[in-house]
């Protein structure tokens, strides 16, 4: 067995299912599909008056990487606004080796995906859905 993509931290994130589900009264929602692999993410957010995320939930029909990413995102999204999510996006891009610099937590966990280009979209999909919802 060679290079391990599914390292314990990624599997643990996915199994934690942080934020899995729907919100009763979301301010915004967005859905993203990846037509190449069929992954699908729906993100619900409730925003406070200043545009910061008060609550977040996700439904993922997709692979473990997508689930882990959605859970990672949910674990750090509350209290952030558009710019704050942009910062997380940079962490993700850095973890995947698409941007220079060191990735912050929790996205540093996705460093093993660096070597697997075809799976990187799986990690980014929840972020893209959330950014759609906020835009």
């Amino acid at each position, binding site marked *: 067995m*060679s290079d391990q*993509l*599914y390292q314990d931290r990624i599997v643990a994130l996915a199994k934690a299912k942080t934020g899995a589900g729907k919100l009763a009264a979301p301010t915004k929602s967005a859905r993203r599909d990846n037509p190449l*692999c*069929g992954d699908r993410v729906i993100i619900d957010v409730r925003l406070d008056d200043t545009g910061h995320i008060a609550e977040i939930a996700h439904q993922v029909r*997709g*692979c473990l990487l997508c689930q882990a990413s959605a859970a990672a995102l949910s674990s750090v999204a509350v209290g952030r606004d558009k710019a704050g999510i942009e910062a997380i996006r940079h962490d993700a891009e850095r973890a995947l080796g698409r941007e220079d610099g060191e990735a912050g937590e929790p996205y540093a966990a996705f460093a093993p995906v660096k070597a*697997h280009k075809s*799976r990187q979209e799986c990690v980014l999909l929840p972020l893209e859905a959330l950014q759609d919802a906020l835009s």
Partner: protein
Amino acid sequence: MSFSVAAVRRQFPILSEIIDGQPVHYLDNGASAQTPDAVLDAVRAYETTGRANVLRGVHRLAERATEAYETARIEVATFLGVEPLEVVFTGGCTAAINLVAYSYGSLLKPGDRILLSELEHHSNIVPWQLLRARSGVELDMIPVTVEGRIDLDALPRLLTPRTRLISLAHVSNVTGALLDIRAVVTLAKTIGAKVMLDGAQRAPHGPLDLPALGVDFYAFAGHKAYGPNGVGVLWARPELLEAMPPFHGGGSMIGRVTLAETTFAPPPRRFEAGTPPIGQAIGLGAACKWMRGLDWTAAHAHEMALVQRLMDGLQKIDGTQILGPASLQSRYPVVSFMLDGVHPHDVAQTLDSFGVAVRAGHHCCQPLMDRFDIDGTTRVSMAPYNDNTDIDALLSGVQHAARTLR
């Protein structure tokens, strides 16, 4: 003719590569098969000792190239059991189906019907949907049984006097199910409909006798049949080819071009506009010849023994489910499965870390996935060069995924 897996494997250079420190357990043949020395050598000989354009040259390289190209047509024709002039070289299987959809399709009238099935590859659905949008033909869909076969019991009620064409996969690229062609052809004849087979997944498993099958069109891809990419084949009955208008326009497919009007060459040239994929056709000819050199009774038995070993192994892993016929009857060596609680991409990715190449996802069969309400499967597709070690490596990987990812 004889069959020895070891002897076959030795002819495929990639199978003895060590890639990222691991041997290659290549079980993604349904997507693209590997290619033997015989094909690599034929292409290289063209590229380095006979490269030229075909048909119009009088110099010796052009004569060599033309001869090699037309010999390839003969090889393909022999492989299919048909006449060389009935064989059209195209850019691939998809291109061959599009040729029929545009050219033969232009002869159809609004209200004419084309019958497909729910298990068709997108390449045998979308060209007809595009034709529908252009010309007002209607599409009907044969449903698929729980076993993943085209439900031929539904055929009589789906056939109408306006049904002109039935286009179906000879072998499913997801379930491995073999079509009962005789049943289809018999019913089609009663209303005068033509039958087209998408042979992409059948051609890689040995020679055919198309006249005996009684079909009207047959399409397949080079790269899945041990040949190069960028080449495919359309066979059609000569009277159909004769009646069909050109599709692509360009050099070589013409009789006489004037600014006012143009006449066209007879088939197959009418459908081979521009410089054809010469080296690729030569490679495909070599692949057909290579296939004809195998003992397919033995090779098929070998492939199906691998299927049995795979199915047996999967059954021992908790939460696996096979999408497709459970028996080995009327089936080719393509096996799709689901592993409860693990996404197919994660199965395939785990397998990759065991050096095992398989495909995961919808396999360009979204309507079939919808039929079973799933996102995708993990697909194992075999060739004669696969062996028990490939299957065992795969089973270890699936076990590992089952243990660690859920």
